């Protein structure tokens, strides 16, 4: 669950963008950073290689403002997508409240998508997550390209939880905010008590 500081009237949620290498995780975060009101965002921190591939994570804090007297923040992280960085992915997943799984819609990326999806669930299960408490959204990215899977096919392959599905073209911003809004609402709904 989220970190709640009653004394400071503050609540922080952690959202992780997951997916295979070059699927568009960092592109999502960079678009959000560019377009969100500067007063609502913190610094975009990227730990990347010289070739601008994510080495450890990207981090972007976003403030929702004060809700029912509680200052509410979402901390967005990406993981490194390349398969050999699994140790880093496990570390970034610690304490996660919501996951955006980004699928690269191209038919040529089938194996990478499936490997990354299985790796996500392996890592969540290994760290003892109560998966029913997690927010989860599937973003199908690169819908503007040719030779892509249908939404139905990708849903069958990468969405065994029946999570919300959003079609996107992150490089031009299509679906980026919708994805963010959906996962944020999910994590709040999951953390609320009747």
């Amino acid at each position: 669950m989220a970190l709640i500081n009653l004394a400071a009237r503050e609540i922080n949620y952690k959202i992780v963008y997951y997916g295979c290498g070059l699927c568009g995780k960092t592109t999502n975060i960079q678009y959000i950073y560019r377009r969100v009101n500067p007063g609502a965002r913190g610094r975009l921190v990227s730990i990347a290689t010289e070739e601008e591939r994510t080495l450890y994570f990207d981090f972007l804090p976003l403030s929702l403002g004060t809700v029912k007297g509680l200052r509410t923040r979402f901390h967005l992280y990406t993981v490194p997508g390349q398969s050999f960085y699994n140790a880093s992915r496990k570390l970034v997943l610690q304490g996660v409240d919501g996951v955006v799984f980004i699928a690269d819609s191209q038919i040529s990326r089938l194996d990478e998508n499936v490997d990354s999806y299985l790796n996500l669930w392996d890592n969540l299960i290994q760290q003892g997550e109560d998966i029913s408490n997690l927010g989860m959204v599937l973003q199908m990215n690169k819908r503007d390209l040719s030779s892509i899977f249908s939404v139905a096919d990708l849903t069958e392959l990468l969405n065994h939880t029946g999570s919300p599905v959003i079609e996107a073209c992150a490089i031009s911003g299509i679906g980026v905010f919708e994805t963010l809004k959906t996962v944020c609402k999910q994590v709040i709904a999951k953390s609320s008590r009747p």
Partner: protein
Amino acid sequence: MAGRKGLVINDEQMQMIDSILNKLQRVTASKFVALVSTSGQPITTAPPHTDADTLSLAALAAGSFAATRQLAEVLKEREFSLLFHEGRESNLHVMQVTEQILLLITFGHDTQVGRVRLYTGRAVEVLKPVFEGAENTTGEERIIDRDYSREAGAAIDSWFPGEGDSQA
């Protein structure tokens, strides 16, 4: 790997924590002291208002500490329980308080490292039971109720006014 436990800090616990941090900052003559979660979220600092970007600091320190723990595992060392960065003008010392909490302290070269380590170690011993209490806190998290959920949902809907998803 840390499991998924809740952490709810109430007023009484925070007063104790702030008092310990203020004392630590005073006796070590450090620039500032911060507590952050191992998942990268800031909790509090002493002094309360600092020029440092505490959000980025918390995320980076937690990531750095997590990587250090993995290094220990690779080297078959039981644990590296602290992390030290030495700079030209200031140093950063990171120490684990509990499974979920890290203590960060920054200080200049006018403060001795040994003094910082001594007092930080003592502070950790006092902080530990307070946070173990916070990890077991139940009930207060009910503040995240349906009303909060509804109001937050409306705030999220109006988060990006005038922004269309298709705009480049």
